[in-house]
């Protein structure tokens, strides 16, 4: 079950990653686990200790019927794309 994961620029720089990384995973949580095997530490950047997705991290999962926000247990489909997107909030602080 291979999925293509779109990595935000902040994490590309931090872990010296490609813009798109390919991993074997069945769920969003497994995507984080598999990324962590190649980029140790990244799991903690994406997930809370209880296994949920971090508060300001959004994960969008491509399905046959469109692109949907995912939770840790959301299934990912073979050959599809997953986007990791930081929350964007602006104006209050430079």
């Amino acid at each position, binding site marked *: 079950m291979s999925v293509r994961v779109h990595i935000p620029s*902040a*994490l590309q*720089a*931090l*872990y010296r990653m490609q813009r798109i990384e390919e991993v074997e995973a069945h769920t969003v949580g497994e995507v984080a686990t598999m990324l962590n095997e190649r980029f*140790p*530490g990244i*799991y*903690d*950047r*994406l997930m*809370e*200790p*209880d*296994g949920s997705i*971090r508060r*300001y*991290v959004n994960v969008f999962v491509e399905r046959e019927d469109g692109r949907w926000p995912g939770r840790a247990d959301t299934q990912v489909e073979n050959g599809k794309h997953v986007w990791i997107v*930081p*929350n964007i909030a602006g104006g209050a602080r*430079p």
Partner: protein
Amino acid sequence: MAERSPEKGDVLLMVGTRKGSFLYWSDPDRKEWHRNMSHDGWMIHHMTHDPRDNSIYAATNSDVFGAVVQRSPDFGGSWEQRSEKLDFPADTERRVRKAWHLAPKPGDSPGHLYAGVERAGLFITDDYGASWAPVTELNDHTHSENWNPGGGGLILHTIVVDPEDPDRIYVGISAAGVYRSDDGGKTWAAKNVGVRADFLEEKFPEFGQCVHKFALHPARPEVLYQQNHCGVYRSNDRGDTWVEITQGLPSEFGFPFAIHAHDPDTVYVVPLVGSENRVVPEGKMTVWRSRDKGSKWEALRSGLPDGAFLTILREGMAVDDCESSGVYVGTQTGQIFFSPDEGENWKVLVDFLPPIYSVSIGRVT
């Protein structure tokens, strides 16, 4: 600033900002500085140098991706960022949101380090920051459910280890006060006797004081100093009791505190107007120095600007251990003021940086 790599004996000036870290180094003349920068876009709350292996550690933070303690083995040329398990156990509601302070644990082994975090907690690593464990005896202290946040949040922002006894550890928590362990972190006691908490109904509680920064000198580790929300204090008995030494200063409020590298009786503060107006009084950038443990204070402003309504945060001042000790002050508006002569004369060393969160000093070994 010319290019050359850090060399043995160089002074390291580590600057953490709202937008990345900046490392400067110079020979002890401190006339020609070199620079590199790292961590684009990340908030850097503190940096420290471990002279045992010349590692530099940075407390890097992101509102989205959380707290990461990063280590550089090559003066910022590259960074390691595993930083796993820098968080409270999953079965609690507490979460680590930022890393605020780092302190090497004294001893023969490099790679042993403490980290202070928000929500207030202490963590320890023995593998160069690759993985962390909570110091639960402090984090779950019986007081901890009643610790209240200060203006910056509920943060553990200062860690001081007695250089003569690594089992004696002090931490500062806003707004809970100073805590001390005498047994390597197994038990902790509040050490705030004599320190005011004017914002509480009870002015001298066991805990709840808003310590902003404290320090000790390695030559006299039984003496502690602290800049508090409500005054400046000295303890002659390892924090058991404190006496106020604010008299002579223009304000009781300020953030950083520093001790001269070679003279444990000489100390520095940067008073601000007060809690409601956190800028230097009258727009006169001034560092205040005492040569006698806080009995008398003198204003140092030769070379410092007027009409400058500047803010200096809790990690914003450091001293070096050169023969003529240097003093460095970083502002929230991106200047670093430098005195090469113990505070007598000042100049702008760097300007136009992002808001400065921390200024730290090391020496290349």
